[in-house]
């Protein structure tokens, strides 16, 4: 019997608010057109403040979190996937894409509470080309929708540790072109004051998120990864909204309070685990299995910490929260000046494009993260549904092992439950834990 100290756990106070806000964002996305608003869809790592600067009634829904929600509801997801496959879409194509195109084909859109409405056609697609297929995603979606104007920003430029002024020139030129394009297609004007307001929200959202995440370095960790996935939705789709900034500030405060009082994510923290990439959304219970039976908790993930977020690193190479600029400093100068500052913020090292654009650096950062968050093991999901997040994953395993961190890999699919063997994965998790000497928790 383990002589371990039991940790007090408590439900998260901010979760109710988060759920309500998420539902509201979905509803706004569907309903905004009834009141003359704009509906824009695109990839989640997007220039949120730029898009929002066209009006408070512009609602953007990031496709990836929507598709993750679809994946979580297996019966609905299969309808979407089969609709695509009937059209000749390859089975091994991005799991999210099929969930999205499928929704268009069957004319069904789901809410997080599983309410179904007819598919809401966006007015525009405005996406950052993030992986090899993002531009292609919306290209085909536009055709399936019967024609939706589509603008893509290429974010494959040098960034992070390699950032140059030419990179900033490139993205700002595109962004300026994008602004003119939206103006042309909507008849609306870009509002510089709104841009400042929403950009400041975005910076603060990023800062609060990083501060919250840093609190998970505490032992015991105040929050586990499954909960981080839920809050992370807002990074992906609406970091520019004030409600999100406020929510993340509250989350940070709540986690700080939990750290002060020694409140943990789970009752027995025996092993701290690092992970990366989207999980098998259809079966998140494998995480609960690890927590419940072994006291093994995922406390850190490069994916939830960094995607749609922004971080700094100090001289020792530790991750620290970024410092948002003062409003007056950001607002100064011309529109171009502000766009340069905005995209410089979004192109910093440890930004979200790192996995795709500078993979070797991303692998190093993952190892750093494992050490900084005091992880004793790593789970790497070999994601058949996303080749982007699988970029470098086997080398990631190699580097983590070289750093003395045991790694379990298991195949799955973030978007398509048919590619995931739950019982096989649970067996692998058991074998892995036993092999690294982690015994099951006693029933007491």
């Amino acid at each position, binding site marked *: 019997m383990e002589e371990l100290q039991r940790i007090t756990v408590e439900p998260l106070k901010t979760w109710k608010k988060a759920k309500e806000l998420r539902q509201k964002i979905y509803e706004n996305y569907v309903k905004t057109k009834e009141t003359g608003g704009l509906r824009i869809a695109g990839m989640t790592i997007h220039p949120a403040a730029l898009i929002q600067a066209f009006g408070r009634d512009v609602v953007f829904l990031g496709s990836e979190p929507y598709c993750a929600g679809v994946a979580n509801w297996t019966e609905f997801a299969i309808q979407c996937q089969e609709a695509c496959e009937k*059209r*000749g*879409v*390859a089975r*091994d*194509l*991005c799991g999210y*894409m099929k969930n999205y195109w499928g929704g268009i084909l069957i004319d069904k859109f789901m809410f997080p509470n599983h309410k179904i409405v007819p598919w809401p056609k966006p007015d525009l697609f405005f996406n950052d*080309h993030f*992986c*090899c*297929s993002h*531009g*292609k*995603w*919306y*290209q*085909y979606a*536009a*055709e399936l929708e019967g024609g939706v104007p*589509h*603008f*893509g*920003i*290429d974010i*494959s*430029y*040098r960034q992070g540790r*390699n950032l*140059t002024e*030419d*990179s900033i*020139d*490139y*993205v700002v*030129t*595109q962004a*300026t*072109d994008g602004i003119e394009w939206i103006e042309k297609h909507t008849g609306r004007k870009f509002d510089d004051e709104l841009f400042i307001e929403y950009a400041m929200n975005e910076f603060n959202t990023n800062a609060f998120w990083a501060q919250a995440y840093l609190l998970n370095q505490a032992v015991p960790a105040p929050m586990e990864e499954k909960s981080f996935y839920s809050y992370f939705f807002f990074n992906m789709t609406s970091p520019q909204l004030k409600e999100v900034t406020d929510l993340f500030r509250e989350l940070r405060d709540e986690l700080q309070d939990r750290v002060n009082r020694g409140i943990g994510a789970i009752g027995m923290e025996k092993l701290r685990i690092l992970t990366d990439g989207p999980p098998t959304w259809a079966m998140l219970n494998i995480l609960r299995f690890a927590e419940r039976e072994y006291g093994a908790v995922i406390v850190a993930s490069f994916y939830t910490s960094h995607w749609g977020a922004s971080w700094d690193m100090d001289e020792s190479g530790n991750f620290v929260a970024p410092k948002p600029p003062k409003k007056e400093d950001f607002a100064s100068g011309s529109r171009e000046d502000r766009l340069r500052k905005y995209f410089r913020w979004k192109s910093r090292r440890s930004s979200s494009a790192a996995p*795709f*654009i500078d*993979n*070797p650096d991303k692998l190093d950062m993952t190892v750093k993260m494992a050490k900084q968050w005091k992880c004793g093991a790593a789970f790497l999901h*070999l994601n*058949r549904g996303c*080749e*982007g997040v*699988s*970029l*470098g*994953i*086997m*080398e990631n395993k*190699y580097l983590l092992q070289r750093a003395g961190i045991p790694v379990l890999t298991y*195949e799955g699919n973030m978007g398509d439950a048919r590619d995931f063997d739950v019982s096989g994965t649970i067996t692998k998790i058991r074998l892995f834990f036993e092999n690294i000497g982690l015994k099951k928790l006693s029933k007491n």
Partner: protein
Amino acid sequence: MTEKFQQWADNRHDYAREWKKKNGGKVVGYFCTYMPEEILYAADLLPVRIFGSHEPDISIVEPHIFGMYCPVCRGCLAEGLKGRYEYLNGIVLAQSCMHMRQAFWSWEMHIPIEYSHYMWMPHGIQVKGRYEYFRSELVLFKESLEKWIGKKISDDDLDRGIDICNTNCRLLRQIYEFRKQDNPPVTGEEAMEAVLSSQTCDKKEHNKVLKGFLKKLPNRKLDRDQGTRLMIIGSEDDDREFTKMIEQGLSLPATLVIEEHCVGTRYFWNDVVPEKDRLMAIGRRYLDRIPCPSKDWPERLRFPHILNLIKEYKVEGVILMQQKFCDPHETDIPPLTKLLKENGIPTYFVELDTTVALGQFRTRLEAFLETLTMELL
């Protein structure tokens, strides 16, 4: 007459080793045809495209590349890990699809190499600002090469590099003109070997052989039945066995009269148009070429080009060759199939792997040809 291309394609490693001995120069391997070879030639380096060997035993890449990545990138890395490319002095990648990036980064990590360079070539080949940005990348690349080789690359050097590559492209296009004819004097297999050898040996030598071949083409008659005029559309395709099977191994005759992939027309269909700013001129060539599916967004530039090729080369049937797990190409397949159907062009889809099950494909392609011949009758 085409034995030289075949020999070069068969013996690319020996060729590169001989070249090094003869010229005392350095060889640089590249992974994707977005790499501006003009600059490498300007630096007196030999650019060689890295290819897999189509051997089935590539388990050596399993610890490095996730199983869902295409056979092309796995084949390339396998060759490197097996030591087949020990003669390379450097590797370079012009940013392209994630799979090739993985092959490059794993190579850089595990295989000792004197020089390596990752070029952030834009994916936004239709976006504003792309020329200026790519030019800045080419400047960085040129400076990096100069540092490595220990000498400056002048405008004259760049002109020389541009001329070598432009000549090669022009000659290949001239040869391809002959494939428009009825009973073309060049088979698809020969064309593939000509392009493949261009990508793996010194274009200065290659240009000489191309010129010689071109001279003989007007009088060249092949003792074969043209059969059905076919086109291959793909991402990457260097499978000579498969190509040979189509043209020689089926019970009904067929000829591959044109292709749209990067060991084919996509490689040489446009030139560098000279301008005072040489790097800008080179950049324009690569940004303006018919794009790889991974860069073909938001408007489709590939599809109108494909329809044009079909018309000019009097294509009667299209084989869509999909490299297993290639997402960008897979996203194009359904709309492309639809477009071809709407234009009355029969298509057949095959999926490629490291090795190709020739027996099965033979049966399927013969059935496809039978339906085509019946329709044409």
